[in-house]
């Protein structure tokens, strides 16, 4: 194993992207993800890549659209308000079946909101983000190591399924430093015969397009896209189960909330309460398997979120509402602490759950 280095989550994303062969980055300054742009600005010119500070988030996502059309790995990063601006581009990328990696280091909202960590863009990300029927693959890292690994994975999934992957992180994940090993197994990039790289006068022209004015044809395109989505739901769900096997009360959390929840699970176990944690790593597709297993023996779920309760809906869907689902949350940049989550576990263990 290679030597571990200390890196901020944001830097780990940037370095992993470069290792994954991404040579084009476009961004616009916004806290708390600026380190990604700074890292790219420093590194890209040295390796023959492109870093460009765009005039807006809108321009940045469309530059991504351009590079992706030309068949190359490309990314942009932003934080909540900036991602809203990218919404149009995300929809066009989906409509044109273009791969790209988008990073959202979330902050509190709505509106300009704050700059402290948040998970309140869960709906926006897992339901697509822009107009129309579509999904993005949404990856939720919970450590700096995962920030790096899921970046590589994100590029691979995006290319394989011709769609955008989003890294849905938060201010804490972006700013924290942890030891990271960057010794990944990077797969060779797949061919993209559809890319607009010039016909070389050897083939028919390629067209990258999301316009389809004939309803029957547009319907068919949507059907086809959703067949692909179904395949992703079948093959690409990722999650971690922590002490779930015999658990009565199962926390569900991702990102920073999962880190906090692990502490709470340990605290509960120390007092004899059988607690566990399901940590979805893909938020779309949302992993159903651990919930189908959990409803057989658990008594309740607690969705621990930095939002007013967004993932909780997916928890209810994944468990077919067979168990009560409680919410334990802080918002606006506040983070639930392990004591608060433990208190919720205790409250439910003592009769809250029936």
């Amino acid at each position: 194993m290679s030597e571990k280095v200390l890196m901020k989550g944001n830097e780990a994303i940037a370095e992993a992207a470069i290792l994954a062969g991404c040579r084009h980055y476009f961004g616009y300054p916004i806290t708390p993800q600026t380190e990604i742009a700074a890292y790219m600005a420093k590194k890209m010119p040295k390796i023959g890549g492109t870093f460009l500070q765009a005039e807006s988030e809108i321009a940045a996502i469309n530059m991504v659209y351009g590079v992706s059309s030309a068949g190359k790995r490309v990314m942009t990063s932003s934080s909540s308000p900036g991602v809203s601006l990218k919404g149009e581009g995300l929809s066009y990328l989906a409509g044109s079946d273009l791969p790209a990696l988008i990073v959202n280091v979330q902050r509190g909202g709505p509106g300009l909101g704050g700059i402290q960590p948040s998970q309140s863009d869960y709906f926006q990300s897992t339901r697509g983000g822009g107009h129309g029927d579509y999904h993005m693959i949404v990856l939720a890292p919970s450590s700096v190591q995962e920030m790096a690994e899921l970046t590589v994975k994100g590029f691979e999934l995006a290319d394989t399924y011709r769609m955008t992957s989003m890294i849905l992180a938060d201010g804490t994940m972006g700013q924290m430093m942890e030891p990271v090993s960057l010794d990944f197994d990077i797969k060779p990039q797949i061919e993209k015969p559809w890319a607009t790289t010039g016909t070389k006068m050897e083939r028919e022209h390629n067209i990258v397009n999301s316009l389809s004015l004939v309803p029957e044809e547009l319907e068919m395109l949507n059907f086809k896209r959703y067949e692909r989505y179904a395949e992703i739901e079948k093959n690409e769900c990722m999650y971690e189960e922590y002490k779930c096997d015999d658990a009565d009360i199962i926390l569900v959390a991702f990102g920073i909330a999962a880190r906090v929840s692990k502490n709470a699970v340990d605290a509960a176990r120390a007092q004899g309460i059988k607690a566990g944690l399901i940590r979805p790593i893909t938020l779309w597709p949302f992993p159903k398997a651990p919930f189908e297993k959990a409803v057989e023996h658990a008594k309740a779920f607690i969705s621990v979120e930095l939002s007013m309760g967004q993932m909780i809906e997916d928890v209810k869907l994944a468990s077919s509402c067979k168990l009560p689902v409680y919410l334990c949350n802080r918002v606006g940049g506040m983070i639930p602490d392990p004591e608060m989550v433990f208190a919720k576990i205790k409250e439910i263990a003592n009769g809250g759950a029936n």
Partner: protein
Amino acid sequence: MVVFDKPHALIDVPMHYCPGCTHGIIHRLVAECIDELGIEGKTIGIAPVGCSVMAYNYFNCDMIEAAHGRAPAVATGVKRSDPENNIVFTYQGDGDLASIGMAETVHAAARNENITVIFINNAIYGMTGGQMAPTSLIGQVTQTSPYGRDEKLCGYPIKVCEMLSELEGPEYLERVTVNSVKNIRNAKKAIKKAFQNQIDNKGFSLVEVISSCPTNWGMTPKKALEWIDTNMIPYYPLGVYKDRSANKEAE
């Protein structure tokens, strides 16, 4: 002997443009330039949202359909994906380039992005049925300025070439029109130069083509071409607004 043929860079399909519209002429000029410069195999065109939204069906080179106004940003990405080898052009109308996409236009020009922009200014939103454009003239009647464009209510039409010429960035800005044989010849010269500049790595080259829209102007095609001379050109004078390399040589 062939006296007239369709350029190779133009696909032989019926176009959807209205009778008398000048898009067809300008498409042809672009395609002729691509043919003559021998660049079709490495050219990527970017179509806008607007009347020319389906230009991807007409040009034989690789084509990308961009979101409304974003063509210069998309072109920036494409160009930078392979700057040594590809030729990238956008084909945009006035609403696309000078209203919703003004920021993208100005910044691509300021960066002297090495792309070619063909800007169709017909002073109206054609595709959506004739609404006021950022370049609609004072007093011009449109669906959304039914009493004539009132500068007190909605300001003045934007002179794109003049405005961009104030920037240090762009290499070449010229305004042309296509309402006569002579003007069409001049337009072709300008378009060819705008592509040649990119081949020579000189940077951002924009050709504004004053164009007609008989359907939404409510005129016969012939009257519309005359209206260009009587109404458009007085406000949008033809000519070269910037030619950095030529200026440098002159110095």
